[in-house]
């Protein structure tokens, strides 16, 4: 279980995250929503120890992040940053294999190879496996990074805008893959998604941030309400029912 205790983040004198305290559910897809600059990436990066909070602490499975050995934590939690970029020219297969690094420390076992093959398979990028990542399209590269996170096979998977650059079909595929990981491998997935209808259809639980404050949290159903969404995004949003799910309309 992951919980945050009153975490704040200050850049120079500006507070971009203000006293976020919450207990995050497990075994679910948990969506983080909020407008640009609301503090979603900052929160995810603090939870995954990539940046230290200015105040407060994060507890993962009963231990503060600062007390975790970083190598051990990498077997429990992985984060895929918002638009990861690298000039390094490596093949898709090498990239995905690096997901096994926390387990293998460079000495690949048959288990690792199986995990890599499976990650390539379920993300549907087997045919790209010998291509260099700097020669892929933006969406293909995004899929390769997602495959790396899947190969890491951690209990908690944090994905910051994984649908970036992906077409609708691929986006649906990734969300379904997350559902599968949650159901079959009891993973807990934290994901930042901007398209609110993807949240409505695939997320189990939602955290909504506004101006660095965790303003709403709850089951997806309870967040998909026009007054809440209008408040979060500062535009009028109409919510309709469609086949038992909520669908948000914000085009004017």
């Amino acid at each position: 279980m992951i919980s945050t205790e009153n975490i704040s983040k200050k850049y120079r004198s500006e507070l971009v995250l203000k006293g976020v305290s919450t207990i995050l559910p497990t075994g679910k897809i948990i969506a983080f929503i909020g407008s640009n600059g609301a503090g979603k990436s900052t929160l995810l990066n603090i939870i995954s120890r990539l940046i230290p909070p200015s105040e407060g602490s994060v507890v993962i499975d009963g231990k503060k992040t600062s007390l975790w050995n970083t190598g051990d934590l990498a077997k429990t939690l992985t984060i895929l940053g918002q638009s990861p970029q690298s000039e390094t020219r490596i093949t898709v297969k090498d990239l995905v294999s690096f997901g096994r690094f926390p387990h293998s420390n460079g000495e690949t076992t048959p288990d690792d190879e199986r995990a890599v093959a499976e990650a390539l398979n379920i993300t549907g990028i087997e045919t790209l496996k010998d291509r260099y990542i700097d020669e892929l399209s933006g969406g293909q590269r995004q899929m390769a990074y997602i495959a790396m996170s899947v190969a890491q096979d951690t209990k908690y998977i944090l994905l910051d805008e994984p649908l970036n650059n992906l077409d609708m079909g691929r986006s649906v595929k990734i969300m379904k893959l997350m559902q599968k990981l949650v159901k079959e491998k009891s993973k807990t997935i934290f994901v930042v998604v901007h398209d609110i209808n993807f949240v409505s259809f695939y997320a189990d639980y939602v955290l909504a941030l506004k101006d660095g404050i965790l303003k709403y949290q709850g089951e997806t159903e309870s967040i998909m309400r026009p007054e809440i969404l209008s408040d979060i995004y500062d535009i009028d949003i109409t919510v309709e029912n469609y086949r038992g799910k909520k669908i948000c309309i914000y085009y004017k």
Partner: protein
Amino acid sequence: MPAFFVQFIVLAMLALCSLFIGVADLSPSGIFRMNSEQIDILSISRIPRLCSVIVAGASLSVAGLIMQRITRNRFVSPTTAGTMEWCKLGVMAAIICMPEASSAMRVFGAFAVSLAGTFFFMAVAGKVQNRGIILVPLVGIMMGGVVNACSTFFAYKYDIIQNMAAWLQGNFSLVIAGNYELLYFSVPLMFAAYFYADRFTIAGMGKNTATSLGLNYKSIVNIGLVLVTVISSITVVGVGNIPFVGLVVPNIISIFKGDSVKNILWDTAWFGAALVLLCDIACRVIIYPYEIPIGVVLSIIGSFIFLGLLTRKPRHA
């Protein structure tokens, strides 16, 4: 493994050429009828020279490869980061402080000064990194220029300029048995680089990716810098400044085989050895029976390739 086989043949042929070129008469056909004088030439001069060329070429290329990964910049190398210049300053400091300094002491001086200098470079590079990938090597070259000026100034002041000249231009012609063996310490360092290969590649993908994969980013970068400065120091003390090898070799290999350190370490070492060997042979035959210092030839070739790399189209949008 046909590729490996080809590489071996190429290196072996270059090595044979290297052994049988020189003022003293020595020919492959006479190899079984050598007199003791000829055996001496081989064992005191030709073989040590060959070995030092191979080790220096291979280890400097590996150093460049490591540096490019940990700085995340393919234009950085011991030459363009100024590391070689810091090494020279260190050697000079060692000579001034202890005129009778042994080679080991000189390596130590070079290492201490170049490690500090390279950390300084990394700190400055971190500050200017976002303003363009080209700026980082330019800063390194500029700092190297300043350091070089300081070295020259002190060399004049303490009247050791003659002594220093040997380090200004790398030169394999002074290598003889007994004065180059220090270079062999670079060999285990290359094995250490292989041990850390994946870690260097992952560090090259950025601090966040490296941390998410459980690496201690800072310590990997530091280990890399120590390896690079030790290799550079050993080379500068052993044979002098061999420029641009660490820059061009990993870049050329990268075009064909990518950047994964584990996959290309052997190719990089091989190509570095072959390139320096080829240049060394060229230096000895161009104005035969005289010799051009290899630093001159490599500077010319290296700066043209560097220009080519700078103007190469970026590979992705």
